[in-house]
């Protein structure tokens, strides 16, 4: 974990409300593990105090990139920042995905919307290529599909309105694949909570291990403010654990979904 001032190299619109930002972060980029995030202080924001967390999408030399959606004041201001401008960044943060061992499990990745960004490094660093299932409402919600194909991965796309790939939910496409008996599979997922919950249910049904990256409203990012807590099983009950430091990646069997608000 390092705090440093980073310089924006590029910040371009991807599709619709999505942007890709590349920053030169020489102290942070080399340390990044799949599934980790960066906590970014958008310096032009004066009255909005908190940093914003972003999954780290790609890493190359001393740069890293994020893929983000403009969903509020902070990300809108970020989307207007230009190359050469600076951000304060703390990273890499969080407990990420477990990269499969050579000859180990075949990874099946499941992504909803910009959850895809959090899975890219895992696909890149996994010794076994697998399948990535990506879902979104519309065509514009399907991001970085080509980057996964370029890694040699099979990409299966679903959209709810049928404008790209198959019509339906990403978990329907996943279910179809899980029904084909194949040994040694493991699920890795990032997306909205209802999708993660459904992936967790499928993992239990097919008796597969699954790692889920949870996306919670976050404050400090380093484990002190206790904003981003999620219910995690402990003994015969559950306790609140922090998405920022205990997660964001949790074993799906540990998540106490019955207590998720």
């Amino acid at each position: 974990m390092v705090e440093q001032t980073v310089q924006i190299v590029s910040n371009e619109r991807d599709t619709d409300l999505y942007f890709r930002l590349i920053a030169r972060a020489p102290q942070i980029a080399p340390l990044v593990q799949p599934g980790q995030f960066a906590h970014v202080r958008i310096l032009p924001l004066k009255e909005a105090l908190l940093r914003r967390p972003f999954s780290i999408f790609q890493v190359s030399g001393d740069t890293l990139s994020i893929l983000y959606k403009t969903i509020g004041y902070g990300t809108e201001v970020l989307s207007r920042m230009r190359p050469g401008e600076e951000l304060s960044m703390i990273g890499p943060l969080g407990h990420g995905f477990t990269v499969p061992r050579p000859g180990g499990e075949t990874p099946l990745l499941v992504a909803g919307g910009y959850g895809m960004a959090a899975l890219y490094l895992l696909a890149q660093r996994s010794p076994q290529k697998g399948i990535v299932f990506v879902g979104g409402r519309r065509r514009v919600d399907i991001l970085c599909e080509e980057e996964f194909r370029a890694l040699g991965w099979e990409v299966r796309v679903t959209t709810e309105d049928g404008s790209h790939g198959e019509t339906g939910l990403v978990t329907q496409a996943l279910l179809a694949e899980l029904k084909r008996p194949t040994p040694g599979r493991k699920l890795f997922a990032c997306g909205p909570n209802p999708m993660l919950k459904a992936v967790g249910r499928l993992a239990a049904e097919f008796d597969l291990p699954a790692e889920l990256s949870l996306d919670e409203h976050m404050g400090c990012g380093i484990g002190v403010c206790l904003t981003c807590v999620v219910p995690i099983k402990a003994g015969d009950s559950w306790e609140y654990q922090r998405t920022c430091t205990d997660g964001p990646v949790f074993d799906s069997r540990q998540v106490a979904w019955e207590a998720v608000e």
Partner: protein
Amino acid sequence: MNLSVKIGTLTMQNPVTVASGTFGYGVEYAQLIDLNQLGAVVVKGIRLEPVRGNPTPRTVEVTSGLINAIGLQGPGVDGFIRKYWPFLKELKVPTFINIWGTTVEEYAEVARRFDALGGVGALELNVSCPNIKAGGAQFGTDLKLLSQVVGACRKATKLPLITKMSPNVVNIAPYAKAAEAAGSDALSIMNSFPAMAIDIETRRPSLANVTGGLTGPCIKPIAIKLVWEAAKAVKIPVIGMGGIQTAGDAVEFLMAGATAVAIGTANFYEPQTALQVIAGLRHFMQQNGIGDVRELIGSVQTGK
């Protein structure tokens, strides 16, 4: 140049510490800042047993501030001693342990436990958390209960006692005097302000707890006034806090009457804040020919 100040019998190497609940148990910040540069480390509130805390959402960002309703999630006395004390006891600077309970007896019992632990710098009595149903602010907004809880802790320990006051009173002076009379060695002025925000799309409160405590730069001017009023009312030192982001903010608190200051919400977005404030305070003193930080305390000129 002297930056050191005294809180009861305890000496802080400089007057800059952190606010309970914004600094975890210190260890979380160890990779980002040198904790031994601080005046003291103040840990999150601890009661006897572990506390699960409130449902989510627990915080909401507002203009120049943050409303929180964490509900004092914590590991309890034993969990704290097992998980965090081995790290904290090795620090060169004192640790202030923020404690709370749901009864006067529980406060005293927690105080006894930490007295027996050895090596604790001071105890900060949280009689002012707005986000728990039993305990917390009920003690800090009732003169009789406040005297009882401070008095009971005074009997339970010789450690310096700091009472963290509630801002939610009409006039803070009698509460400050009551804590002093009951044996408190210092006052922390103050805890967060009761507050609320509403999501206009869903017509739901932004926090699961409905209400919470407001902190951050938006409360600083109110905090300055409370520190000024409390410091005039008592002889014991006041630790001032509320929205400090810069050395200038800290100097303002000192001039209002604070002997020391605590960085709170700023730790969440800029972990370097406390160290920046210490450096900036030193610079301010140099620029203004001030050799001893104590010259600043209460130096505001309110006369003509």
